[in-house]
């Protein structure tokens, strides 16, 4: 059996009714992953027998009446920048060759403690730096809707695995849009929680003040369930918000009447946005109005400075975080270096790919003497202005509604020769990371035969309202139930 798997909610009911076992689900997921892998390349590694053994344990728990949670026995996938104890993590980089993690990421540990079975580690842009998953040292992931197109990135493997029905749920990470943009490109739901909502312990650091772990799923309700499982304070992450996991599922009333949804005008006039994408977003807005929500135009006046701000701050933080890859404690080490300095240089030059080197250079430059104030400090000041934009806009409304990306999935190779053009594809997503607020992308129709994503942005710690609006929309539409044509 290698049919696409339905939503988590449906699978849970099948398990509860005894119509299917966890072992059958996990083996079906593994079989489907293996069958699609030559064309999709969503995975860096599959867990095979280890996953099957965990599924058998889940079945045994069920037999004893000791089901741990609604996720018990459910197959899931994890982006390969979140560590599993005793298993490899690559970040899709040659520099982590041979690394086996001695510990487990908190979000992964919480998902597995709830009984979820990780079937594999998904592909990404190297160290999560990219918007297409083409920067993987192991080769690009392809979009299940059109194998000639990119799945988005950097969490492209997780998005593609969910879209192709390999798993109902996957974890990703989002530093500038790396969950939301691939969710939009692949026609699935992707949630970037509030900064600090989900522990970053065991998430390989890219830009520490922006990174956040979050779920992909096929419905807002499934995303809510996963968020409730992985969120909440963790003493091992000093930036973890000291709040319990939000009760998101209770908020899914299907009712949005009385909610005020803001349309940031700057997001609808941006240069280069596809009119077909805007048309789908406006149709979704009309649907939410029919559901009783009120619309209000708002302004986020510093939006046009967001990409520049992001591409100063994120590389600066990355250049510092990636200093740890030096060939001393783990991963790749260049052979036959004469001195320590030579070993550092050769290890790093051999181990990192072009995009990672570019960002390390950019970050080192903007932090270096003489440029720090002009570039880095300036960007931190503009970050304050962007944060205030959101505070003001979200004082006047409950949720902001925007496109997730200015266009549908682009063709593989289309932007890889032009780094700046690739960066501009994050134009609608980076602000949420800079401001720390939660963001969600849901499918809202098609343009040029490819899925279009609707982005909802909310107040810090108010994922529940985002999920409530998304769920209400999904109760009234069926875009999220569409599947890519079967990958024959």
């Amino acid at each position, binding site marked *: 059996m290698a049919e696409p798997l339905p939503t988590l909610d449906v699978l849970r009911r099948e398990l509860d009714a005894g119509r299917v076992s966890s072992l059958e689900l996990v083996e079906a997921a593994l079989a489907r992953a293996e069958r699609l892998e030559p064309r999709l390349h969503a995975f860096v590694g599959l867990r095979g027998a280890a996953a099957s053994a965990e599924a058998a344990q889940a079945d045994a728990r069920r037999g004893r009446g000791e089901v741990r949670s609604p996720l018990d026995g459910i197959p899931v996938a994890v982006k390969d920048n979140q560590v599993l104890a005793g298993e490899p993590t690559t970040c899709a980089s040659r520099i982590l060759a041979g690394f086996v993690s001695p510990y487990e990421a908190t979000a992964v540990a919480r998902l597995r403690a709830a009984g979820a079975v990780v079937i594999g580690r998904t592909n990404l842009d190297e160290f999560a730096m990219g918007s297409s998953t083409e920067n993987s040292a192991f080769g690009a992931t392809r979009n299940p809707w059109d194998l000639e197109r990119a799945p988005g990135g950097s969490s492209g493997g997780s998005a593609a695995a969910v879209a192709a029905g390999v798993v109902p749920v996957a974890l990703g990470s989002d530093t500038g849009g790396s969950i939301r943009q691939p969710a939009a490109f692949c026609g699935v739901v992707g949630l970037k929680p509030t900064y600090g909502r989900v522990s970053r312990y065991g998430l390989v650091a890219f830009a520490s003040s922006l990174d956040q772990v979050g779920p992909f799923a096929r419905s807002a309700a499934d995303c809510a369930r996963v968020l409730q499982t992985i969120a909440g304070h963790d003493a091992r992450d000093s930036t973890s918000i000291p709040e319990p996991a939000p009760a998101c599922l209770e908020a899914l009333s299907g009712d949005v009447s009385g909610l005020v949804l803001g349309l940031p005008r700057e997001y609808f006039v941006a240069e280069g946005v596809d009119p077909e994408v805007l048309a789908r977003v406006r149709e979704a807005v009309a649907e939410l109005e029919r559901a009783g929500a009120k619309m209000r135009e708002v302004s986020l006046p510093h939006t046009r400075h967001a990409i520049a701000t992001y591409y100063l701050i994120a590389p600066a933080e990355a250049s510092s975080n990636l*200093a740890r890859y030096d060939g001393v404690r*783990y991963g790749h080490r260049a052979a036959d270096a004469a001195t320590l300095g030579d070993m550092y*240089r050769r290890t*790093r030059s051999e181990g*990192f790919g072009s995009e990672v080197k570019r960002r*390390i*250079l950019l970050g080192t*430059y903007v932090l270096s003497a003489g440029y720090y104030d002009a570039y880095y400090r300036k960007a931190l000041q503009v970050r304050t202005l962007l944060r205030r934009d959101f505070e003001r806009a979200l004082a006047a409304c409950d949720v902001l509604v925007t496109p997730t990306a200015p266009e549908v999935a682009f063709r593989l190779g289309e932007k890889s020769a032009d780094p700046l053009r690739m960066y501009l594809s994050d134009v609608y997503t980076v602000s949420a990371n800079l401001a720390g607020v939660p963001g969600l992308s849901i499918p809202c129709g098609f343009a040029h035969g490819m899925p279009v994503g609707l982005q909802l942005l909310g107040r810090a710690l108010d994922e529940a309202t985002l999920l409530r609006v998304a769920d209400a929309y999904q109760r009234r539409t069926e875009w999220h139930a569409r599947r890519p044509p079967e990958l024959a």
Partner: protein
Amino acid sequence: MARITREEVERIADLARLTLRPEEAERMTGELETILEYVASLEALDTEGVEPTSHAIPLRTPLRDDRVQPGLDPEQAVANAPERDGHAFVVPKVIAEDET
């Protein structure tokens, strides 16, 4: 005027402990020039007196009790080392022979 020169790119690469091949240094110089040109749009924005934001969600540094807690044991800590000697990491000489 160019915002960044090939010499600067090579100096930065050295600071970041990267060695660029000549064609790589050439390409990176062009790409960084384009990116820096783009981000220079921030220069036009008046940020006089605006506090910088380094973390979007203000948090106080949490304190924990000063108690001994189990951490990574030494065997695990060196298990991934490309080269080790007992519980120590082995690295090449810090100073080359001809520099001594």
